[in-house]
């Protein structure tokens, strides 16, 4: 396969961004992008434009039963117990699939092996727990233990409460007491969400906690573990 020059790649960039570049041209363009940061940037910028173009499409009201249909589809029955032993095996396969996806999954989802199995869905389920301080809930902590794994905090601090703006450290605590730093979280009045990547293992995760500049734990979220069969 002949390697494209930057100029040739630039000529294909719009079609690539619109995802209408067929077969060989697409393969050659992708091969060039693999080693050319400049062309990657161009395609990324045009992709953003293409995405915004699609967002211009007018909304439309689906039929009356649509919402219920979707909600039913989003709440499938739990997998039979006999199939749960496959979870550990499926996790490795899922990790490979997700690691190659990222945001691009949405764009290239038709190229991925489908459908996802029940066991895979179980592995990638987001864990969440109330985030509390002094027995009072100040928000919720969400942890996604897949690839990439991340932590998301939803904090809600009343406007009437005199709380100075500050920053706290967020870290995860494993069952053995070891910790995983996540990042620095700004604290302010009102509702805000904060998230960041973090190395998470579903089996060992115990707690997420926020620590102030004095080293004191000011809020914690304890994750419950559902025992696998």
């Amino acid at each position, binding site marked *: 396969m002949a390697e494209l020059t*930057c100029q040739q790649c*630039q000529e294909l*960039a*719009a*079609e690539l961004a*619109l995802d*209408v*570049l*067929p077969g060989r041209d697409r393969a050659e363009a992708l091969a060039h992008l693999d080693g050319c940061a400049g062309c990657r*940037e161009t395609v990324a*910028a*045009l992709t*953003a*434009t*293409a*995405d*915004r*173009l*699609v*967002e*211009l*499409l*007018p*909304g*439309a*009201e*689906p*039929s009356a039963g*649509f919402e219920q*249909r*979707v*909600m039913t*589809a*989003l*709440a499938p029955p739990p997998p039979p117990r006999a199939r749960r032993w496959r979870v550990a095996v499926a996790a490795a396969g899922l990790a490979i699939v*997700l690691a190659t*996806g*990222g*945001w691009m*999954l*949405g*764009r290239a*989802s038709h190229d991925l092996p489908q459908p*996802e199995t029940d066991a895979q869905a179980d592995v990638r*389920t*987001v*864990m*969440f727990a109330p985030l509390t301080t*002094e027995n*009072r809930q100040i928000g919720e902590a969400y942890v*996604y233990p*897949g690839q990439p794994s991340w932590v*998301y905090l*939803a904090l*809600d601090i009343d406007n009437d*409460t*005199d*709380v100075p703006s500050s920053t706290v450290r967020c870290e995860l605590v494993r069952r053995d007491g070891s910790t995983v730093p996540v990042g620095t979280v700004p604290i302010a009045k009102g*509702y805000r969400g904060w998230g960041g990547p973090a190395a998470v293992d579903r089996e060992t995760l115990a707690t997420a906690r*926020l620590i102030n500049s004095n080293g004191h734990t000011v809020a914690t979220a304890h994750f419950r573990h559902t025992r696998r069969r």
Partner: protein
Amino acid sequence: MRGVHLRRRPPERLPDDMLLAGLGAGDAQLALAFVRRFQRTVFGVALAVVGDSGLAEDIAQQAFERAWRHAGLYDPRRGSVQTWLTSIVRHLAVDAVRVRRPAPVDPQDLMSLIATITDTPERRVLAGETSTELRTALAALPPEQARAVVMAAVHGMTAVEIADLEGIPVGTAKSRIRAAMAKLHAALPTPRADHG
């Protein structure tokens, strides 16, 4: 944190990424709020691409299921939840259309869609909608470039398919797509990537 307490917000007031996290977590209340917030958008994209309301509903449902299964892959640095979701539904819809081809795009439908997309009523301008710039730029394109870029972006048509429909050489179709995208991109306030 002393004196801090939770003020429960109704799901309708939560930000998009929070609802997506709830959807991924299996929170039925947040999932319902997510579906209600985005169903018009998702169904609208599907309907514009496939032109059949029954099929569009099936595709819209698939898009929500995919968002649910892959909520953890959403990366806010790459764009909004709505952008992520419309990208998912657009690809699902284009895949469905490609299976059914050759199904010609009705020129009248295409012109009607372009007119709808480029409509910039005063309320939108006054509201400072960021999409106004893109709508205006699309409206300013030569008609043949607007048709080419909409056929590609919305219907997922390749340059060869556009050339067949328009009765023009493939190279001309490619040029129209390229020129249109360059103009649309230049019209947006985001920094341009200069490389060549």
